[in-house]
């Protein structure tokens, strides 16, 4: 055993002893921070703030949501990967930050699996395939859309909230599976992309459900399909894309989830997981979440890890086929 190695092991043992002590005290010492990797007002931020209140009450400790946005969520992830594993720093990660980015970015300064403890899966975030009925009045179903796209290849545009965003990948995955030629037009975030859909600059979009629930109710956008495998409670009339577009087995969703830095004591992870699941099963919280078009996913840390590993493989394949890449 080399001296460095011995020092490292001693340090690790000490760290474990220290964290063991803090695990009993946790979470009395100081407020817990949930780090988000996206800007204030983004879906992760809205959801983290919604969760922070009941979770703080259940744990008897204040929870602060702190967004360190940038680089597709990687800045926030890196911060948490390097944070002290004492249960006071958590991350609201997504399938984007912890599955897609692993293949989208050529290199990441952390490992999305090895540097994190999975705490709890939170919600499934569907994308909704939408068109603007004022721009495309004749397209009433996904079959109509496919027919129009096949009639005039390369004519229709699909908007996304950015290169490599889940809506971009869903669009690329859709175009490939249905074998249609539609052109990707990326925007800088949700507001300009929605504006393009309203003005008709882009005609098709896979958009996360949260910001468009009001629009769908008002009929501004026509939902042709939802990217989940089954229908969701808030949009009972919208069929899954697999069914609506006759693409059996097609699905493309992302999730939000809670991660902790690697080495966070297992008692803390368990406790957090239990409290989160209790909140997800609370009828009042459940209603709020479903109103945003989300699907609550109570599960154990182990089940969550399996989902993450499965999705890393799945998205690697999709990212490769879409041709998206970020240096």
């Amino acid at each position: 055993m080399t001296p460095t190695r011995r020092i490292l092991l001693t340090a690790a043992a000490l760290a474990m002893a220290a964290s063991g002590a803090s695990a009993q005290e946790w979470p009395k010492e100081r407020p817990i921070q949930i780090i988000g990797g996206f800007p204030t007002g983004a879906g992760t931020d809205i959801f983290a703030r919604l969760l922070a209140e009941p979770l703080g009450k259940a744990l008897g400790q204040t929870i602060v949501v702190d967004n360190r946005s940038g680089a597709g969520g990687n800045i926030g992830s890196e911060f948490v990967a390097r944070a002290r594993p004492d249960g006071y720093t958590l991350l609201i990660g997504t399938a984007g930050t912890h599955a897609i980015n692993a293949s989208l970015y050529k290199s990441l300064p952390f490992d999305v699996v090895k540097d994190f403890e999975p705490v709890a899966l939170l919600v499934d975030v569907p994308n909704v395939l939408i068109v603007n009925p004022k721009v495309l009045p004749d397209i009433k179903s996904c079959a109509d859309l496919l027919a129009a796209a096949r009639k005039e290849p390369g004519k229709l545009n699909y908007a996304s909230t950015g290169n490599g965003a889940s809506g971009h990948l869903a669009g690329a995955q859709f175009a490939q599976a249905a074998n249609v030629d539609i052109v990707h037009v990326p925007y800088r975030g949700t507001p300009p992309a929605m504006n393009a859909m309203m003005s008709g600059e882009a005609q098709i979009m896979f958009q996360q459900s949260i910001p468009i629930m009001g629009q769908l109710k008002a009929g501004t956008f026509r939902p042709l399909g939802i990217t989940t495998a089954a229908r969701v409670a808030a949009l009972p009339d919208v069929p899954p894309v697999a069914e609506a577009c006759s693409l059996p087995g097609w699905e493309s969703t992302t999730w939000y989830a809670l991660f902790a830095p690697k080495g966070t004591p297992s008692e803390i992870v368990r406790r957090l997981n239990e409290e989160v699941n209790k909140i997800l099963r609370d009828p009042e919280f459940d209603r709020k979440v479903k109103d945003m078009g989300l699907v609550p996913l109570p599960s154990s840390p182990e089940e969550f890890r399996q989902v993450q590993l499965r999705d890393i493989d799945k998205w690697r394949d999709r990212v490769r086929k879409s041709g998206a890449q970020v240096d």
Partner: protein
Amino acid sequence: MDLLANLALGFSVAVTPTNLLFCLVGALVGTLIGVLPGIGPLATISMLLPLTYHFEPVTALIMLAGIYYGAQYGGSTTAILVNLPGETSSVVTTLDGHQMARQGRAGAALAVAALGSFFAGSVATLFIAVASPPLAQLGLQFQAPEYFALMALGLVGAIVLASGAIDKAIGVTVLGLLLGMIGTDVNSGTERFTFRVPELSDGIGFVVIAMGLFGVADILVNLEKAELPRMTAFVGRLWPSREEFRRAAPAAVRGTLLGSLIGVLPGGSAALAAFSSYALEKKIARNPERFGRGAVEGVAGPESANNAGAQASFIPMLTLGIPANALMALMMGAMQIYGVAPSPRFIAEQPALFWGVISSMWIGNLMLLVINLPLIGLWVQMLRVPYRLLHPTILLLCCIGVYSLNSSAMEVVFMLAFGVLGYLLLKFGCEPAPLLLGFVLGPLMEENLRRALLVSRGDPWVFLHRPISAALLAGAALLLVAVILPSFRRTREQAFQEE
């Protein structure tokens, strides 16, 4: 009359004791964070959001809106007094507002800013009430070619913005364009000039540059003066003179109109409105050389424009369900949690909520005027604080403010580096304001140029076939000619004199 009935409904909602109280709370908090540099309404609203979950939606929105437009009032205070923009939208207020303070007209500048803001706030409220739906439709006429043309017009305006040599203005604008290129390219996803620094992957923040170039650079310039002039002697009369009123009033009207129009555009912001108003005032002034030396129009116009812009940016969110900027996205998220998601049918479905919030905006603006006018005397006392205390305090507030944006120490370092750059620019006699405009407009212009060509499948004529885009480009060309001609004329006149 529908409008009167609607406003009556709105006021009946807005004047309940609870709503009045929270309107006042919002306006006060907004003024406070507006005065503190860097701590913007976005951070404040996101921190206060959980508190509002237990309020009625209308009460919560009234308070949050109050914070937003209150911050526009407060932001001008530090801009005028200590050359430090409290909010990004107050950057141009430093140009003439601070000069007025140095000439002993700090009280007048503050009063003009407050009165201009109140006027703009009142008009913008009425504007939202009368013209929301048609205005929102106007916003939808804007696609990539129109945005490109608008940015081209703005960029030419950036050069007009500068006082002094035009070659320096162009140089500084180009530097701003280059700085704007840093970050991830929207169209291809490729990182440019980031040197593998993750903090650069989304580009440099506007606030970081603005605080460095204006706040920090100003302190550096002051430090090298062996004997600092004590401002005490210059406090002067607190109220604007009749002459100042005469110059300020029309500028405030123009600023209000411009601000309302720009605020409606998705992506338009209070900051852009203020910049445009300053450029306009300078262009139409009889003696533009007064600008940058304490012209009262340079305070009245932009201050009215930023307040009108802040309020008008509610229009696309409330009428179309499209947030115009990050702050509106946050508000929309909050509304979703309250269970009142905005959409095109929002006004019809939630009339009490919509008109209540609109009416509260006018009440809030009145409250702000009542709060701010008596405070002017107090604020001006800040000028009596000696520099050895004032400078470290400002520097500290800047650091805290920048750090609070993304909790990033790297960005504080960037801000200090821009402070040094700003110092060098001032030493070389270059105005830093066009740099900032180039920095904001450049990336938008490139993004929309490429998007327009992508959507038109490579046809460059798209910019001229679309009427709004063609008109804006023609405006840019005219402005360019107008800028170049006088300087030609001057050179020619000089040449003639030498003969």
